């Protein structure tokens, strides 16, 4: 019990407990509970920083022989880097959120959701079991749904939240399919056990490898907002900025990248993997960077640059070379550092000036000097200008694209182009709002430290790691690269590589980036043009599917649940006729054994004749009294039939009940309306057809049953024992009051309830306000 990984459940339980503490509503805004909330991620950060050294630790905490899945955690370099990002940036976000949400309602609720999200993210990056990973994965989708839709009184927020959960949830579901196939062909659901070379060979050569991989990739691509599933991420910017800074820079959207990196040793370096990742990542990075360039909303710019950066990561994971893996390991960290500080910067500016539109913001430098420095540092790292850590990252990217055999010019070209646009976009956020004429917003001043210090910490770290790469080289980046490639990697990060192609490309990027920034001036016209491109593709498809779904369920409900008894009955009866009719027509022989039949005497013939006439009278009489009287006659003829065929008890009962029913009818008849005289219509034909079909079927079925020998075992038992056991000579009576006495008692109860119902309906007096009049 000494290793730190086995203490993970304790950490999870602690976080869960504090979520509950925060979820209990508080009357005070910014109470003690929300002000103390940063302590949880800080504690978790220290736990991951000090408790693990990047070597692989796995612990199975619970398993059961009947379940293929188990409760197990793995912490290796990759998981640790993500855990550090999640908790480290999480700590700063919690501090920032306390400042940002000051005086706002529901701060505690926001923090509770944020903490839940943090828990889910930690679960994703630390789970060793596929099913556990999936559960945490879905939990991130669900908690981010609440976070994106946090301003729930705003319709656009709700729509964005739904859009995000629809895309990521759908992707997650597809991914689950992939996971199950993977687990079944690998024979294990533990990711650690899959890294065995024999298992890898079995997986990659399996016939189901291709669909499985595509399913998992779909899950990762939707989560990491790869083109064409990217649109939910810019939409998710409706969330409060602390949420965007947390979810959409360093954590949630990187879950897809994490997943790809995690499976890279197992599934990587196959044709589908490389093709899919390179092409989707490549398209995403250049498309999103282009989109970012023409936006005016700061958070929109950041959202698209994030999509672009995610594209770069996916692209690099597709290249699979040692350099590419080193590049992606570093870039995950680099991007988290500068993008989170960018987001917090945008949020602070929005908080202080009330706008995030860069075409309206200018001259903030004098009022917010520290923020300006943060902006410069973040843009510096974003642009890959030495000596920032971003420079190291970009160096590695160029090195890996240059080394790719065959397509190196193409890949390097699009990487350079993407980076030029990202460079310019960084300047739009980190530089432009602070320059130029001071805008006349009154009392713009430096906000409280909690609104800019967290951003500054991240920006300074970005510079520090660039100047002293040794700080992160062996402790962070090498273990990550080792985990992603599956082999031991030895990376030596350094600032100066001498004059080589990579350096020239970097210089080219910077030069053209500045030039682009100088030329580009985003405005409404360009924005409209760019938005137009976004209208196509899956966003429209998603909306069409969603609307179609609502419309068709509306239609189905209105058609089936139309409140009309006749339609319900017709559907039920029509179905009955189809099913019964099929069975009867396909299995009945239609031969009747004449010898089994009894003869028709004149009395019987007349009785049945009267019955037939009465039925027609009941059906077609326009008078209520005639219909009820004819109905009574039907009952009496049945009574006579019972007499003919040895059922005296039935005859007596039928006679009594029928008389009572007719009397009751007649008694209330004068209170009832006249029959509605409706002209003959197609309705009658349809109803008549259905009625005749059911009637005909009943006739055929009863004749068919008559061809079989009856089973009389139970009847014989009753007949034999009626007198011997129950001392009664009338077997029907004995059955009712003796053998099945309990049934009869319950029947009496039912009748009594009906009697109470009748009595209370008769005696009911409505209050004035309940009357219709």
């Amino acid at each position, binding site marked *: 019990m000494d290793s730190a990984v086995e203490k993970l459940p304790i950490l999870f339980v602690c976080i869960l407990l504090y979520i509950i503490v925060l979820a209990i509503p508080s009357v005070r805004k910014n109470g003690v509970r929300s002000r103390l909330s940063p302590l949880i991620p800080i504690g978790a950060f220290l736990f991951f920083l000090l408790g693990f050294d990047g070597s692989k630790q796995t612990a199975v905490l619970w398993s059961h022989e009947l379940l293929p899945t188990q409760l197990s955690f793995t912490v290796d370099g990759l998981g640790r880097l993500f855990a550090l990002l999640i908790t480290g940036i999480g700590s700063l976000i919690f501090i920032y959120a306390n400042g940002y949400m000051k005086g706002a309602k529901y701060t505690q609720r926001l923090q509770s959701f944020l903490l839940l999200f943090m828990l889910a993210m930690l679960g994703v990056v630390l789970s060793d079991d596929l099913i556990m990973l999936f559960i945490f994965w879905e939990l991130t989708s669900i908690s981010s749904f609440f976070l994106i839709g946090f301003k729930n009184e705003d319709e656009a927020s709700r729509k964005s939240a739904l859009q995000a959960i629809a895309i990521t949830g759908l992707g997650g579901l597809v991914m689950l399919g992939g996971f199950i196939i993977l687990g079944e062909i690998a024979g294990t659901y533990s990711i650690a056990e899959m890294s065995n070379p024999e298992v890898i060979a079995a997986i990659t050569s399996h016939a189901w490898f291709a669909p499985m991989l595509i399913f998992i990739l779909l899950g990762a691509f939707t989560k990491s907002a790869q083109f064409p599933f990217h649109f939910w991420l810019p939409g998710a910017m409706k969330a409060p900025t602390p949420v965007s800074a947390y979810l959409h820079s360093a954590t949630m959207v990187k879950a897809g990248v994490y997943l790809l990196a995690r499976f890279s040793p197992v599934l990587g370096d196959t044709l589908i993997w490389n093709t899919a990742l390179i092409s989707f990542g490549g398209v995403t990075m250049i498309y999103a960077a282009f989109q970012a360039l023409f936006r005016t909303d700061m958070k929109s710019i950041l959202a698209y640059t994030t999509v672009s950066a995610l594209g770069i990561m996916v692209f690099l994971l597709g290249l699979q070379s040692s350099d590419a893996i080193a590049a992606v390991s570093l870039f995950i960290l680099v991007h988290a550092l500068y993008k989170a500080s960018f987001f917090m910067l945008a949020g602070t500016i929005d908080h202080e000036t009330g706008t995030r539109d860069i075409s309206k913001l200018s001259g903030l430098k004098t009022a917010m000097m520290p923020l300006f420095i943060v902006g410069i540092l973040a843009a510096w790292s974003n642009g890959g200008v030495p000596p920032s850590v971003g420079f190291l990252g970009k160096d590695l990217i160029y090195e890996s694209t240059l080394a790719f055999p065959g397509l190196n010019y193409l890949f390097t070209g699009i990487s350079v182009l993407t980076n030029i646009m990202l460079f310019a976009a960084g300047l739009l956020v980190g530089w432009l709002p602070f320059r130029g004429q001071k805008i006349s917003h009154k009392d713009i001043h430096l906000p409280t430290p909690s609104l800019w210090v967290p951003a500054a910490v991240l920006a300074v770290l970005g510079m520090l790691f660039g100047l002293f790469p040794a700080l992160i080289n062996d402790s962070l980046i090498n273990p990550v690269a080792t985990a992603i490639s599956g082999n031991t990697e030895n990376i030596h990060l350094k600032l100066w590589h001498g004059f080589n192609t990579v350096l020239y490309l970097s210089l080219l990027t910077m030069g053209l980036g500045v030039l682009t920034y100088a030329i580009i001036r985003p405005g409404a016209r360009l924005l409209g043009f760019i938005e137009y491109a976004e209208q196509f593709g899956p966003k429209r498809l998603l909306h069409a599917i969603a609307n179609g779904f609502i419309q068709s369920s509306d239609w189905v409900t209105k058609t089936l649940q139309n409140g*009309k008894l*006749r339609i319900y*009955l017709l559907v039920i009866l029509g179905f009955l006729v189809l099913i019964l009719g099929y069975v009867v027509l396909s299995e009945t022989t239609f031969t*009747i054994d004449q010898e089994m*039949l*009894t003869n028709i005497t004149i009395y*019987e013939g007349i009785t*049945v004749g009267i019955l*037939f006439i009465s039925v027609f009278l*009941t*059906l077609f009489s326009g008078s*209520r009294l005639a*219909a009820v009287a004819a109905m009574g006659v039907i*009952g009496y003829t*049945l009574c006579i*039939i019972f007499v003919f*065929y*040895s059922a005296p*008890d*039935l005859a007596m*009962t*039928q006679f009594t*009940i029928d008389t009572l*029913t007719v009397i009751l009818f007649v008694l209330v008849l004068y*209170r*009832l*309306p006249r*029959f*509605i005289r409706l002209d003959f219509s197609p309705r009658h034909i349809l*109803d008549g057809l*259905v*009625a*005749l079909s059911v*009637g005909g079927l*009943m*006739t055929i079925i*009863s*004749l068919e049953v*008559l061809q079989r020998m*009856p089973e009389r075992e*139970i*009847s014989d038992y009753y*007949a*034999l024992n009626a*007198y011997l056991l129950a001392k009664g*000579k009338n*077997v*029907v009576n004995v059955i009712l009051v003796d053998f*099945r006495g309990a*049934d*009869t008692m319950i029947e009496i109860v*039912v009748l009594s*309830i*009906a*009697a109470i119902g*009748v009595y209370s*309906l*008769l005696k009911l007096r*409505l209050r004035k306000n309940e009357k*219709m009049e």
Partner: protein
Amino acid sequence: MEILLAMTIGLLYAAGIFLILRRSMVRLIIGLILLGNGANLLIFLLGRISKGKPPIIPEESKVFLDAYADPIPQALILTAIVISFGLQAYAIILVKRAYRVVKTDDIEEMITTDEI
């Protein structure tokens, strides 16, 4: 005779169904009663019919000496007749009551609880 009775069952079912598809509440109840009658007759017929052999043990003996009509369908129908009377009585009073309140017995005007 069995064929004739089978046709009677079919007719009662058909008439009952045709009536419950109508818009008038009164016709709906009459339809239900006819359906009940049809079902009773169906059970009766399927127990096989025989003349002059009621399931009553003769005065002088303790068990049946001769063939006898099947008592089980009769017991079932007896129960069914009584129960359906409970249902019919309640339905008739309910229709009467409903008519007094909403002034209609048209089922299609009763599809909503709101005033039309």
